[in-house]
């Protein structure tokens, strides 16, 4: 009960919980498309690629205005996407290799810029290093508002283009034959994932962002075969783990929010894999054992 009261009246906790839940919803929804298109690790690459963008935006604008930094992150993520596409399309390097290349070199360049900035200016004044590991505890109401607006736009686009995205996710070739511009749709969907990543950087950081996109979708997939239900469930699971992470982290000293969100999410995904009706692995094992027993008789 006390927790509930804090959740409503405690300024910090309210922002952290709201921000984390918001992130869970947005990345849960977009993650469904990414996972179904077998691009689960695209978010990971984009999150890493955002770092140099944030640093360059800081150097150019001489300010840490959130929206400027996020814009930098988005531009860098976008450039990374284009590079990724070029490598996969024009060379014999696999998508897996291209992801690794883009992820590690962009991030390395980001680290160079980050250390360059840190040594020139006051060590932690820039506050850029919070993007590495995320700092949900430092979210203020203004951040949450920005997150809500960005996330709202992304979700609205998903609703508007739901049919197109659905077709793209399940049968891109068919979509193309119907006359949809699959290239444009694909770039648009990736741009929306960039938005989710940008929202997530402040909360869970570069490394853990991958799970925010993959986790809810994988968990939700186990419970249903319908895309619409899967999206709703993923949003729910994302929000739930965001809330849980925020609440666990305030329950004791020195517990970071981001990792707790990810661990809650992992627990939900594991539970779904094991116990979801029909697809659950436990039921699978039991069915097999019963069949064996029936055969033995």
């Amino acid at each position, binding site marked *: 009960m006390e927790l509930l009261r804090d959740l409503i009246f405690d300024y910090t906790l309210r922002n952290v919980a709201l921000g984390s839940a918001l992130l869970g919803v947005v990345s849960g929804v977009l993650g469904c498309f990414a996972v179904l298109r077998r691009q689960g690790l695209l978010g990971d690459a984009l999150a890493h690629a955002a770092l140099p963008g944030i640093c360059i935006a800081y150097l150019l604008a001489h300010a840490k205005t959130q929206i400027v930094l996020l814009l930098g992150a988005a531009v860098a993520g976008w450039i990374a996407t284009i590079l990724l596409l070029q490598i996969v399309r024009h060379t014999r390097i696999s998508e897996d290799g291209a992801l690794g290349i883009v992820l590690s070199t962009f991030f390395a360049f980001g680290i160079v810029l980050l250390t360059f900035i840190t040594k020139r200016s006051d060590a932690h004044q820039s506050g850029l290093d919070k993007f590495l590991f995320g700092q949900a505890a430092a979210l203020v109401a203004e951040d949450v508002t920005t997150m809500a607006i960005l996330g709202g736009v992304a979700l609205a686009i998903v609703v508007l283009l739901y049919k197109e995205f659905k077709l793209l996710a399940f049968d891109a070739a068919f979509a193309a034959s119907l006359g949809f511009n699959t290239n444009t749709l694909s770039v648009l969907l990736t741009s929306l994932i960039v938005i989710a990543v940008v929202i997530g950087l402040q909360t869970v950081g570069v490394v853990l962002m991958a799970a925010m996109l993959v986790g809810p979708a994988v968990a939700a997939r186990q419970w249903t075969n319908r895309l619409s239900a899967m999206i709703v469930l993923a949003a729910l699971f994302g929000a739930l783990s965001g809330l849980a992470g925020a609440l666990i982290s305030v329950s004791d000293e020195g517990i*970071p929010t981001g990792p707790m969100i*990810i661990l809650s999410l992992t627990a939900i995904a594991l539970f779904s*894999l094991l116990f979801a009706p029909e697809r659950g692995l436990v039921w699978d094992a039991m069915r097999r054992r019963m069949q064996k027993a029936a055969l033995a008789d």
Partner: protein
Amino acid sequence: MTNERFDMSASLAIILTGVLVATACALLGVFLVLRRMAMLADAISHAILPGIVAGYFLAQGPNLLAGFAGASLAAVITVALVEALQNTRRVGGESAIGIVFPAMFALGTFLVSKYFANVHLDTDAVLYGNIEFAAFDVLFVNDVNLGPQSLWVMGALCIINLLFVGLFFKELKLATFDPGLAAALGFSPVLIHYALMAVVSITTVGAFTAVGAILVVAFMIVPAATAYLLTDDLSRMIVLAVVAGAASAVAGFFIALALDASVAGAMATMTGAFFLLALLFSPSHGLVAKARRLQRQRMRVAMENLVVHLFNHEHQAYEEHEAEVAHLSSELRWQPGFARQVIGMAKRAQLVQQANGHLMLTGTGRELAQRASALRDGEG
């Protein structure tokens, strides 16, 4: 002390560590890139964090051996978990990776901030390492100063990886390019897969302290991918990958020095710079060469079209008209600029000659036209 022999300058120790990391990583990276396991290596590099923390916890402080043991165990668990998830067929390959390594990394950061908040186990260093201190972390055995520890660790890993790749070259090659044949010939691709994962894990752990998690990945994947764009020969690819990695380490060191920025970061950035060069300018697989090849092909086909067109209308009543430059561009549906370009090239190649506005085939032009139309008829 008898340490004059090992008293090398700090810069040299850092550069040498970088080169050794690059070499050890590139040797294995070639196979990771060819076998499409780049992101699995990335997952391992992150997921060893809880293992390192556990080692730190058990040894009550920083201990090379305990860290190594813990991290290797974590790496094994990661690979096993990813494969177990994939085998359930409920989760795609890349999604399995996307679930396992963040969970392991989250567990690691949680342990660090909960139990070691005041201890020297810097989480930033986890990501981008501490190669700057390579010279100062000295290895003592029986109180004898043996020089920088990182050099010993990375040197040993280089030797292990060289031996691994050298001894099992044929097996690795076959299992990479034709796993079916490898199995048929009696060496198990699965065994080779796990052996490769094992050396990747210990290399990651060893390089981790020097350059950090994500930069290990850069050294493993990027120089190998660069080499893949430059050659079709596996042994040459390995050599090129090592050279690209080592060159990145050296160049990165001086750039970091100039900018006063992270050395490991600059070294890994340089691997990206070299990759970009190869991507653009590789003679065989580069984008520029590819675009040029395409353009040359286009021109060749256009010239062929030109001479065939002229040839078809030779000795016809309206030959004069068909051979007019302006008419050609509309007849063959060419932009006037492109038509001029093609005609210019054909003239230079002595396929056609121009006489007061009309084009005429030369002897070689007629030959080419005959050959081309014969070929086309054959196809039709």
